[in-house]
């Protein structure tokens, strides 16, 4: 179900149980695997989704990304947009209330 509320920094998301996220050495990228197919993720989508663990809040993910990529320009808007798109497709689900 598409929730009308925008993603906020306090939200906690986990991957849908229908999915598996996996690093594919042969393709040099993360892939999302699900019953009817697979999606190759680009570099930033992979880095974001692999931090979606059902425990860490969006804020935590942002902090983690800043640490991993200290030279990247501010990414908050992009990360939130990516998570909203992922939620729209049913890839991730809210884990807190």
């Amino acid at each position: 179900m598409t929730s009308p509320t925008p993603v906020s920094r306090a939200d906690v998301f986990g991957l849908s149980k229908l999915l598996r996220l996996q690093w594919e050495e042969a393709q040099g990228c993360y892939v999302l695997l699900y019953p009817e197919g697979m999606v190759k993720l680009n570099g930033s989508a992979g880095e974001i989704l692999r931090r979606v663990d059902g425990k860490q809040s969006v804020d935590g993910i942002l902090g983690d990304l800043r640490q991993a990529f200290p030279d990247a320009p501010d990414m908050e808007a992009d990360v939130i947009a990516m998570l909203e798109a992922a939620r729209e497709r049913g890839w991730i689900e809210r884990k807190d209330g």
Partner: protein
Amino acid sequence: MADANPKPLWLLAEVTYRCPLHCAFCYNPTDYVRHTKNELGTEEWISALRQARAMGALQLGISGGEPLLRDDIEELVAEARKLGYYSNLITSGVGLTEKRIAEFKRGGLDHIQLSMHDITKEINNFITDTNTFELKKKVAAMIKGHDYPMVLNVVIHRYNIEHVAEILEMAEAIGADYVELANTQYYGWALINRAQLMPTREQLEKAEEATNRFRAKVGNRMKIYFVVPDYYAERPKACMNGWGSVFMIVTADGTVLPCHSARTLPGLEFPNVRGQPLEWIWNESPAFNKYRGDGWMKEPCRSCPEKTKDFGGCRCQAFLLTGEAENADPVCTLSPHRQVVDRAIEEAKTPAVRAQPIVFRNDGNSRKLAEGARDLVPPSIHGLP
């Protein structure tokens, strides 16, 4: 489009052609009895899984026949998980027990795709020629109970197409996450029984409307795929996403195919994992290169701007219905053979043709067909998969 270096991302393991069901729409080879004796052993399967994974395979379908007739599926599933496959067991449900499903879960099987047929016991039992209605419901509950994504596959044909709304309600009630309403594709047994199985255009349109209404109601909660029957389309399906492009099928006796019914095509010799490494089979074998890319195409496909989208459709369908695999898939309205498809649609409306008895998929019929009996086959068909 045509990747210069294609990888077999999807591996289908048709581990056995034995099956306790006798579905009228089964796409298995009609001479399957020839391939039931010499099945690959566990070690041979594990070797095939390893080789394919090293070549980039990611999605693994374990199907058949009924894969659960083998007692080593637990072992294959566990090996697949270790290798990093996303694995799917495609089953009729017959043979699934609490013990086996728990073992699959432990081994890391990712999901189970269960076939269902109808909301009525009568049609379920008629079309599969078995008494399996209650069993399928129990199996569905078992799959849910083990916290598996519930993926239902319902093959659609004239006998259940008017029940699509009720079928979707049943799917929702048992907690399905994905439902595939797969209109029958006319290969194998389904091709023989085409006149009895094909719905009318009106039936099809109503079914699509019912599906869309249901989609609007359930939203993201349940994903519904409606696989259109290509006979009623104007362009062919992009069969297998192109020959030797992403799909590879290893069959029960080790023969490796680019698509389910490729064995039917004349002049091709399909390699076997018992004789050659998969790497050679995929990259070098003449069979896998025969219809790769578009060098083999004739007109109207050769100069058609849409050839990068549908690759000229299905080679097997082109052969089965026009007698030549290099022809455009006759489903295409640009094909000079489209009338064979239109005729089949007409035939399906003719009561005399529809009254032919259904040829159920069973060993007796398969033996007769393997021996070349043509009296079971409609005369307009050039070959049999």
